[in-house]
């Protein structure tokens, strides 16, 4: 959306240069004028303003504060900015440090050093508002309704979150005020935000009818790609949000707002409202009896949250999941539980509401917190008056919630979000009683939104049964999950079982023995590239099972560790596997999804990625890309490989590629020259393990478990090393040997895997099946094989037609004194042997002229037949 607009924008300086440096030939300005051709409006951005800067992802521009504007020698307009970072930019694992839910509009004062603060002025999109807030401070209501407003609570320096230092805080505040004045004068089309508080509120409500459309379109556009009907199901939640913006609902809210002082009435009204809620929930309950208990708990908890703004009831509902089962003395059907629970809540609500309303009016000074309950009350009031409209209002609640909740939505697991809520409580104990409550209203409404949004999504009767069981999942994407097992997996009981567990390929060893050198090489390579901030490729080859992927993963793990300890600049890690792609071009999609979370078509993804890697991004992190099974990314034009290896050579990409494949000469063999040259010369090949290394691998895995004889391990490793040097095979043989040993132990009691067991396992795995198959074949099948041999010997060619074989066959049968069979029977036998692939046969339509050849050497057949 923004990119499209941007193309029509013209940037020009606002005012005269403030200062100009002759030597550097730069001149500084106090503002920049952004003129949009299409709408003929002008926006002026001044120093100290908060701006949106075009980012990687068109939907999510970066937030920054303008610090300096200047024109450099080459007439390029440049800007120096102070970054703010959004939640999305913070690594997933760090988000936990926050211990609370971060709404989409919250940004963090960015103190990460690595980012480039000098940007091109053309990337500025428009000015916005960023409000500094104290931790735990209530958000002003207007923020909720506005897409273009952000607020800051904490700073982020790459590792931890800190409260804003007082001077930054005041600086931000000042900048905000200044801006407020300026925008009043300069902004033509956006109504000013600095008005009297009351007015502001109503205005924001009015504006919400227009403004949030932006937000919604954005949401829509994000999701429009997923067109599957299930996605639609999820989608409907969003759509429901859309509906809210029907002006009528909003207007009514506005109309009602003057009457909000009549808060005394509320107690009984809440009661009525709750009744409605009960009714709404009740049919929902039995319709989905299969739902997990956890969900029920959540749903039980949800209704009180909507209408009531009481602290206590909130807490009860929140703690409902853990407590309800224990505290509920009446264990009845879930339906009864709901009733019971609501009853309790109702009482609580009444009390709390009176109390609350008193408190709310006694403290008019703390304006922010009061606003929310008020609006809530208006809703409640209206709902009681017009039951029919309740749904739409619930929607509006859902909307409030949804906006706040938007960022947390991606948090998929339900339990974790509830944990976060509880953490939230602990987080702000020092703030006055009121504040945690209202902040919680915003942070918890997941469930309320769920029930609210869902009811109107379709015809009310139909929805509960269909929609609700699904809702707790992420709306964005179905979380695929295999059902949990009922019983816990058994822990290994004996030494052998323990050994088997450790020998499983999936068991992750603490270290990778015998690959230290390769490890060091790869590590050094990536590390140096990371430190230099450049890009590069490395090609790693080796036969299967030599630990290529494992080593690379280990390297990445170490690097990530180092990055966390701040020894290295932070980097992103993306992995694609050629085998797990359905089509080489899907690689683009996967990379893009890893990097930005967008889901687009392959062609579009390629364009976006090319743009991403070729343009200088201000806040670009280094990216480490692992391409496993590279040879499968081969296409006829090789454009996928070409692009992949071309990106690192771009100046700004900071992309490091580790390509893994089996064949050593892959670049020479299948790649075109231009692709191979881009791949570069950094190669590494993993040699197959020698028997000593295999032995070491097995014994390192078995450390501390006395299950194998030393000689047995050696035998296995020698055998495997002689064949392929495949560590997987080695481990599999050992595992099989433990099984054989276990089986043998049932009779006697050898506690240890001996040579005999290992030999048996090896024989089992490597023995040729053919000889055995021939020996177990029926008599006539054997005679046919003999006939084929005889025919081959006669003709001297390793191929014969059935007709020729038939003659020999009949002769042989006469020698053996058997009834001579018919041609049909011969054909049947031939096709049977063909199915086992002892013979290779042609399609049977040729009948007598069908050609036959042996699939194994003649000697094998002679050997197998002679044994009889």
């Amino acid at each position: 959306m923004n990119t499209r607009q941007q193309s029509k924008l013209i940037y020009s300086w606002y005012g005269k240069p403030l200062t100009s440096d002759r030597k550097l030939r730069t001149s500084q300005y106090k503002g920049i004028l952004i003129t949009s051709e299409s709408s003929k409006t002008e926006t002026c951005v001044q120093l100290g303003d908060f701006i949106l800067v075009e980012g990687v992802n068109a939907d999510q521009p970066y937030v920054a504060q303008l610090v300096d504007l200047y024109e450099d020698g080459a007439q390029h307009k440049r800007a120096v900015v102070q970054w703010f970072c959004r939640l999305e930019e913070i690594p997933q694992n760090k988000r936990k440090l926050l211990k609370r839910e971060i709404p989409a509009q919250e940004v963090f004062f960015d103190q990460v050093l690595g980012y480039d603060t000098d940007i091109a002025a053309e990337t500025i999109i428009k000015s916005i508002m960023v409000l500094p807030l104290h931790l735990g401070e209530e958000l002003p209501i207007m923020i909720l309704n506005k897409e273009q407003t952000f607020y800051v609570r904490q700073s982020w320096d790459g590792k931890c979150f800190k409260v804003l230092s007082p001077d930054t805080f005041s600086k931000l505040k000042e900048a905000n005020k200044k801006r407020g004045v300026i925008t009043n004068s300069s902004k033509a089309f956006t109504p000013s935000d600095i008005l009297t508080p009351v007015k502001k509120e109503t205005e924001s409500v009015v504006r919400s009818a227009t403004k949030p459309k932006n937000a919604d379109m954005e949401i829509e556009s994000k999701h429009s790609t997923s067109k599957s009907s299930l996605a639609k199901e999820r989608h409907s939640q969003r759509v429901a949000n859309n509906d809210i913006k029907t002006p009528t609902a909003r207007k009514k809210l506005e109309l009602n707002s003057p009457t909000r002082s009549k808060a005394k009435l509320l107690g009984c009204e809440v009661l009525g409202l709750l009744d409605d809620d009960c009714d709404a929930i009740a049919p929902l309950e039995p319709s989905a009896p299969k739902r997990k208990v956890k969900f029920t708990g959540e749903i039980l908890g949800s209704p009180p949250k909507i209408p009531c703004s009481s602290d206590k009831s909130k807490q009860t509902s929140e703690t409902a999941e853990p407590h309800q089962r224990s505290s509920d003395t009446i264990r009845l059907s879930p339906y009864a539980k709901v009733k019971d629970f609501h009853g309790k809540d109702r009482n609580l609500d009444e009390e709390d509401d009176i109390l609350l309303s008193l408190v709310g009016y006694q403290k008019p000074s703390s304006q922010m917190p009061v606003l929310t309950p008020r609006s809530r009350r208006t809703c409640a009031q209206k709902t009681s008056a017009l039951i029919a409209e309740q749904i739409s209002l619930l929607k509006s609640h859902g909307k409030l919630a949804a906006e706040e909740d938007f960022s947390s939505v991606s948090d998929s697991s339900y339990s974790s979000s509830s944990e976060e809520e509880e953490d939230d409580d602990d987080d702000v104990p020092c703030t006055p009683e009121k504040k945690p409550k209202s902040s919680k209203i915003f942070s918890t409404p997941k469930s309320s939104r769920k029930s609210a949004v869902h009811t109107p999504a379709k015809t009310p009767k139909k929805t509960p049964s269909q929609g609700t069981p699904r809702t707790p999942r992420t709306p964005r994407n179905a979380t695929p999950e295999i059902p949990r097992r009922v019983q816990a997996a058994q822990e290994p009981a004996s030494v052998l079982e323990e050994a088997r567990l450790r020998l499983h390929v999936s068991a992750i060893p603490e270290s990778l023995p015998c690959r230290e050198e390769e490890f060091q090489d790869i590590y050094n390579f990536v590390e140096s590239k990371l430190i230099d901030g450049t890009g590069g490729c490395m090609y790693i080859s080796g036969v299967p099972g030599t630990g290529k992927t494992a080593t690379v993963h280990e390297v990445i793990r170490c690097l990530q560790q180092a990055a966390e300890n701040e020894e290295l600049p932070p980097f992103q890690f993306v992995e694609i596997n050629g085998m797990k792609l359905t089509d080489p071009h899907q690689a683009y999609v996967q990379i893009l999804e890893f990097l930005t979370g967008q889901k687009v078509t392959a062609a579009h993804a390629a364009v976006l990625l090319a743009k991403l890697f070729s343009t200088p991004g201000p806040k670009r992190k280094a990216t480490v890309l692992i391409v496993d099974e590279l040879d499968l990314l081969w296409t006829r034009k090789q454009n996928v490989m070409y692009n992949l290896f071309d990106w690192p050579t771009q100046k700004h990409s900071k992309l490091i590629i580790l390509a893994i494949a089996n064949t050593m000469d892959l670049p020479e063999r299948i790649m075109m020259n231009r692709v191979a040259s881009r791949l570069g010369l950094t190669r590494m090949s993993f040699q197959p393990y020698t028997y000593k290394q295999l032995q070491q691998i097995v014994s390192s895995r078995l450390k501390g478990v006395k299950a194998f004889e030393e000689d047995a391990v050696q035998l296995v490793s020698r055998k495997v090393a002689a064949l392929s040097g495949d560590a997987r095979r080695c481990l599999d043989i050992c595992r099989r040997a433990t099984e054989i040993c276990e089986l043998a132990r049932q009779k006697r009691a050898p506690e240890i895997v001996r040579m005999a067991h290992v030999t048996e396992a090896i024989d089992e795995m490597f023995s040729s099946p053919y000889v055995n198959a021939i020996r177990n074949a029926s008599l006539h099948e054997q005679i046919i094989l003999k006939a084929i041999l005889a025919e081959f010997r006669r003709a001297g060619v390793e191929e014969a037609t059935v007709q020729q074989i038939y003659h020999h066959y009949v002769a042989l049968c006469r020698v053996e004194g058997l009834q001579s069979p018919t041609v049909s029977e011969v054909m049947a036998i031939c096709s049977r042997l063909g199915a086992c692939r002892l013979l290779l046969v042609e399609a049977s339509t040729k009948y007598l002229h069908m050609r036959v050849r042996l699939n194994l050497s003649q000697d094998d057949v002679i050997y197998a037949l002679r044994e009889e």
Partner: protein
Amino acid sequence: RHLLELLKRTTVHGESNSALVIGPRGSGKTALLNHVLKDLREMEQVRENLLENPFLSGLLQTNDKVALKEITRQLQLENVVGDKVFGSFAENLAFLLEALRKGDRSSSCPILFVLDEFDLFVHHKNQTLLYNLFDISQSAQTPVTVIGLTCRQDILELLEKRVKSRFSHRQIYLMNSFDFKQYIKIFKKQLSLPAEFPDESFAQKWNNNVQHLSEDKTVQDVLQNLFHHTKDLRSLHLLLMLASSAVTVHHPLLTAADLQEASRQHSTDSKANIVHGLSVLEICLIIAMKHLNEVYDGEPFNFQMVYNEFQKFIQRKAHSMYNFEKPVVMKAFEHLLQLELVQPLERPSARAQREFLLMKLLLDSSQIMDALQVYPNCPTDVKQWAASSLSWL
């Protein structure tokens, strides 16, 4: 058995495994698997673990796309609405992998993938499905056991090297390794009526008869013959089915003659049977072809050559044969073509004349002679012509 042990470990310990069951057709691979699964379900511990098993057959899931959809459907994952699976192939794959990656050894319930006709999965593009399944079974994800059923002995050579490396090389070979005594035993068991048969006296009589049959010399000969041909139990079932379908109210007990008759039906030569139903003219044509084959040592011939040969025969020897017009002979020849007793070497093209299309005879001379022996009302001179060698030409 070994398989049972393997599956039990997967379910109880959450270990991932892969195995192949290899054996010729009719050796009871599927039966074994079903039996094992039934046993497993009876075990208390396992049933609670909710063992799921997507069952895929290479004949039904002809490509990875279909197979993936089928897996998702059978696992009843979330993007399944009703019986349909939505999303593109790539999405599906990513989705399934994601799903399987979510789980770990101890918490998620194990899944058993059964791939029937495993050899057909091998021919899928890049063997993507197999790679992914085996990769999962080799990594710390949801415990998975992949069982492949196939009759091809050389299956491992068909696997790509990286797929092969991920396969655990656990192969279970099923062979029909029983001897004739066991074969007789199976025969008895198959024919005997179970104890819960309602009419007890009849069951008694029937079973006695079966016992008697199994000791009879002729029956043993029949069975021995079949046994020598194939050890596949399905053919035995077929034979017994044929025989027992002769049982009626008036003929309540199976006799040795029934079995012999069934065996005869079972082993007749289909092409020779067709020859019995041919007209004299068509027989003559076949004989002419046979002679041509002898003259030119199996080289292909065309209709014109056959017709000339036939003309020669008519002119010199035939007294009982009517000299047919060429179109009539042509018609008869085309009939043979339709019966696939004669096969053209190449596709008939519009340009080539029908008379000159090169053909091959799909019958052996001994078959023809056998057929002539039993052919009713065959003119003697035709028989002579058939039996004669090249000398008279």
